[in-house]
């Protein structure tokens, strides 16, 4: 059991930090602009593909910086020439715009890079074993993911709490109208925040694309989970996104790692493995794990729509 818990915590934290990289940008954008960016995971995907393509020429380490910047520029263009126009019609069209954008980005990625996963791999230096825990090897790359995530969280925290730009963002998070009244160019701030959020997602893609797999389906796969994270953490709250990422990461990994079903632990009690409750009774924890985030999403929205750390209701 100790092993299981240790695995779950380590793997869960790893998965959680990746989720955080993706969701921090989304929650920032939502908090500031009220836009729930459906295409956020698409920018995550673009990050992975850009890093792969740049990496072919410049090597991984340069691509690590170039790719998020390129994704940020894409984000800025989308905000400036797409979202800003739709903004006048209200939040629902904004959501729909990003919804359509997700389709288009996926198609374009499949067009340019093909539908097969690309061979995007970690540099050899990171592929060596860093340490061994209970007989399983962990590579330096996994340690690297943790470091990137920690650096990102600290960077974000410093940016938001300690800089002037952060002050404006904080202000805009709670009172966008006030910030405008104080003479700041709110549309410009919006563009920058959107670009920044997308760049964060892109950075998530640079490491996530290696850890998982880089194919056109990766955005569709990750999109809903990222929503769950930001809703659970509280829309607009960066620390909330961190906590929610870790909760979901650890919980999901734990469910995957244990051999558990109600029937196994309590006993079948004569309940057949059929019918709604029968199947549930015999359901393995492993099979429930993928559904878990959505269960959390619905429960959160019903009982605490502002999430764990949110200040405002969604």
């Amino acid at each position, binding site marked *: 059991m100790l092993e299981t818990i240790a695995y779950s915590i380590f793997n869960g934290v790893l998965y959680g930090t990746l989720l955080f990289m993706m969701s921090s940008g989304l929650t920032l954008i939502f908090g500031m602009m009220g836009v729930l960016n459906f295409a956020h995971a698409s920018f995550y995907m673009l990050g992975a593909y850009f890093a792969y393509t740049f990496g072919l020429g410049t090597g991984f380490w340069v691509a690590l910086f170039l790719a998020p910047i390129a994704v940020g520029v894409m984000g800025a263009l989308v905000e400036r020439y797409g979202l800003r126009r739709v903004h006048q019609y209200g939040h629902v069209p904004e959501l*729909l715009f990003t919804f359509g954008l997700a389709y288009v980005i996926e*198609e374009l990625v499949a067009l340019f890079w093909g539908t097969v996963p690309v061979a995007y791999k970690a540099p050899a230096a990171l592929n060596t074993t860093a340490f061994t825990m209970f007989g399983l090897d962990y590579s330096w790359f996994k340690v690297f993911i943790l470091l990137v995530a920690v650096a990102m969280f600290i960077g974000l925290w410093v940016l938001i709490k300690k800089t002037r730009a952060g002050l404006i963002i904080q202000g805009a998070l709670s009172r966008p109208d006030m910030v405008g009244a104080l003479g700041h160019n709110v549309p410009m701030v919006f563009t920058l925040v959107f670009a920044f959020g997308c760049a964060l997602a892109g950075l998530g893609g640079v490491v996530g694309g290696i850890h998982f797999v880089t194919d056109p389906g990766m955005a569709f796969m990750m999109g809903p989970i990222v929503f769950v994270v930001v809703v659970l953490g509280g829309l607009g709250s960066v620390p909330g996104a961190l906590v929610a990422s870790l909760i979901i990461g650890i919980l999901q990994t734990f469910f995957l790692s244990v051999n558990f079903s109600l029937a196994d632990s309590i006993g079948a009690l004569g309940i057949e493995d059929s019918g709604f409750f029968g199947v549930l009774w015999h359901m393995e924890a492993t099979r429930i794990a993928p559904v878990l985030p959505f269960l959390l999403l619905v429960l959160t929205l019903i009982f605490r729509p502002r999430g764990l750390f949110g200040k405002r209701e969604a």
Partner: protein
Amino acid sequence: MATNTAAGGTNLLKLWPWVVVPLVAIVLPFIFDSGHAINLLSHMGVAIIFALSYNMLLGNTGLLSFGHAVYYGLGAFVAMHLLRSINDAGGEGLPLELLPVVGAGAGLFFGIIFGTFSVRRAGVVFAMITLGLGALVHSSSLMFTDFFGGEAGLFGYRDEAPSLFGVDYAPSRNVYFLVVAWTFIAAILIYLLRKTPLGWMANAVRDNPERAQFVGYNPTIVRFIQFALSAMFAGLAGGLFVITDEIVNDEAVNALTSGAVLLGTYIGGIGYFIGPIVGGTLVTFLESSLSTYTEAWVLYFGLMFIAIVMFAPMGLVGIVHTQYLSWKAGGWKGNTGARLYILLTGLVGIFGLICVIELAYHYFRSWDPSAPFALMGVTVDATNALPWLVSFGIAIIGFGLMLFHGNPMLKRKLDAKSDGGKA
């Protein structure tokens, strides 16, 4: 979300479309008499009901749902179970014509259950709950194989069920007429619902929930009733789908189905009663036909949707309607040429864009990009610069003229006109 119920409504009060459209629908299968065409027409009917039910949420009540397929699919599954039990009983039991009612009942049932906790808030919270519910139900559909039949789905036979009127439902044309009948009934009911106090209150709740509450209507209850009724009609569409396809599987409840109905409804125009009708028809047609002509159909779909969201939030029907109103009010006088010019240059631009996309698909996807490739009836070599330059050229010239020549021209004429009016 500005809506134009009043304008859309007064026109529709005239009764003749309600006679002409069904007549046309009845004649259609005799013109397009291949099995596939008739199936396509039947699917359009199902899509129309589904889209109309969706618009009861989005257009009328302002509720954006990402999981409407849940009710469509659950209705279909329940109807399928009943059809199978009728098959097993050797064709004894409920007449096939009434099967959609069972689907509707199931839709209503699940609508009531899920509605109790979904509709307390509108906006993003509601959208996210429906997204989560959709994912939950879809995942369950692969877990509870007794009810959902696993990923293989469930089959039934429509011709092994009794008929009220002694019709043999093996030929798809007879099924099509049944679909037309149900589509007509559902459309009338949904239309009439819009005209009831409930329909008006739904609009009020959409536009200003606080004020609606102040007047004495609880927004949650109004949303709940609309939600349950909408789920009922979605279930009706699902039940009808069981008859047309005789198969139902997890697709019926998945996110793509939910997404397609959202796309279709919005493209058609959520502010109009006939918007979802147009959208459902168009999306069904494009999905089944566009994909046989081009690999890029998903991209065209996405681009069309984005274009509608950005430039014509009232949908296709909205474009036609505003132009029609403007024409009727004499707004076209003296600038008809400019309007046609914008339309024409826009079409040229779209044509160029299509050429570029088709070239790109051929270039990136084909095993041999240099193989001769028929583009708009011209055989070209995609590795050559010329077709690219020409295509890009057409696109740029088309859109360029539209944006920088046509638009300012129309604006000038309109300005001149209003100035003249003042003077």
